[in-house]
């Protein structure tokens, strides 16, 4: 989000320079700055609060999205394979992303970022036990 806001600010500055709004650059810069502030201060918290998951006995439920909300259920026995992925920033905080793949054409990849690495690996072991062969 912070990166996106910086990008937005940069873009606005560029526009001001290009269009030569000389007299009143604030006309563009102030609204953009406000938008960037909202993006940095408000949205991450809201989006974070909407992220959620529930490991049931038979299914994984993932909630995500602040404006566009999605609530996905993947039955364990429909999962084809599982990834536990870690980016460089995530490695710094010992976090991992759990990615499950189903055979479905829509929504075949369900990701769950920001899990503690231990949790993610435990979840992977749990799900692994339910994977069945030749479901389709």
């Amino acid at each position: 989000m912070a990166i996106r806001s910086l990008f937005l600010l940069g873009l606005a500055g560029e526009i001001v320079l290009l269009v030569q709004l000389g007299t009143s650059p604030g006309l563009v810069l102030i609204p953009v700055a406000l938008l960037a502030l909202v993006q940095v201060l408000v949205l991450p918290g809201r989006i974070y609060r909407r992220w959620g998951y529930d490991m049931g006995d038979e299914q994984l439920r993932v909630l995500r999205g602040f404006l566009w909300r999605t609530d996905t259920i993947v039955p364990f026995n429909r999962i084809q394979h599982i990834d536990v992925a870690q980016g460089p920033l995530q490695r710094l905080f010992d976090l991992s992303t759990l990615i499950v793949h189903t055979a479905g054409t829509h929504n075949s990849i369900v990701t769950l970022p920001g899990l503690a690495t231990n949790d993610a690996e435990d979840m992977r072991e749990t799900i692994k036990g339910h994977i069945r062969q030749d479901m389709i």
Partner: protein
Amino acid sequence: MNDLSASPPPDQSAPFQRLHPLSIILRSMGTLGQNLFAIVVLHFSLLDRNFVHTGLAAAALIALVLGVTALIWSRFTYQVTSKEIRIKSGLLNRNNRSIPFDRIQDVSLEQKLVSRLLGLATVTLETGSGGGEDGQLDALSRVDAEALRDTIRDYKAGLNADAAPAEGQPTSEDQPSLFAMDNRRISIAGLFNFSFVLLAILGAVAQNLDFLLPNDYFDPRYWLAVLPGREMIDGFSFWMRIAGALAAIVALVAVGLVSGIVRTFVREYGFRLDKVESGQHGFRRRRGLFTLTDLVMPIHRIQAAVLQTGPVREHFGWHHLKFISLAGDSGGETDHSAAPCATLAEIDPILEQCAIHRTHSDLALQQVNPAFWWRGTIIATLLLAAIALGNGFLVHRGFLALPLLALPIAAVLFLNWRHHQYALTDSQLFIRSGWWRRRLTILPLRKIQTVDVSQSPLAHPLGLATVTIGIAGGTAVRPLMIRDIGLDQAMELRAALVSSQNRT
């Protein structure tokens, strides 16, 4: 060849085989056809229209293409073991691929016009993995191709590959077909297959050959100048002009109809759907006028059935039955067409074969929330009003009439809403959608992969949600959805869908 493989194949006895030698000619012809143009260009440019030189160049090209194709052919081998098929290919980059029979979704045999003359067939094995076809043997002799298909088909049933063909053949030939289309039926299907492909082709031809046309052919001013006196047109009576416009529309419609019928004939000629009884039960579909295709899809791979129709077609009782599976028909289709133009009475027996039931004793289709159409209408109206106001005062008064467009939009949205329904029975989910392109999807609950409940910012304040069902197959662009039902309803529906999942 055997010493090349790093791990010894499970079945050493099966020999590595090559494709049919005639396939060299088949494939060279394709390459030569592409290079014919280059020869013609050379003839006029570099070779100064000297026929001897051109002939030499052509001979050299033919020799080169034949040689390379033969080399590729000699390095392409395949081996059919008891469990899998292994394909080794590549001139410099050797590729060794093994496809387990377990993973093969369907097998199709294709014969283009030339391969039919040579008695060859291309075998395509689909596993449903992302990137197009996964195993293609181009080409085998027709007999070998059918034998290979039968081997794969019989694998699941544990039949011996040698015993199968003898009794496998007569079952499909002697029994009456499940569904077949005669020429009259194909013409009917073509009528509803209205398309402007022919027009597009003519347009493309015109554009590519534009050096033959006068310079300003596409410039309206040219036409204004050339047409024999605009006064003549101006002089026509009002009705004459109307008649002219009508004639143009009729011509356009005629072109659309004819190209639709021709296209349908080329694709569907001799359409025949059979049930395969031996080995894995499945459907066998044969069709095609120039390019014959012969496809076998196992029944247990079928994920869902789709009945497509339109307002006019439904009036006459015609439906298009498709099956959704991980594999799809060639040419970018995501589904397998099983009956392009059939009555419901003809479709029911086909569906019965794969344990899908079109009707149910307590089938009560439920309507989605009316917000489905009025929300869209309000947004469209507001947008049009904004544009109309902006342009109406700044550009031209005529723009003020723009909001009238909201009426047809509202009508279409309303009709779409009327036709968007769903129903849940103990083993199947029914979803109807679309007014112009009507689709009824019948999905056995055990084929559901994931279920999403999502809310857009526009649905959230109204307490509505959209249920999206992930199935193996179909398009990712237009997934199976139930739009705009109450959030509680959506949650209930999903609970029902998922609980049925865990039982099986």
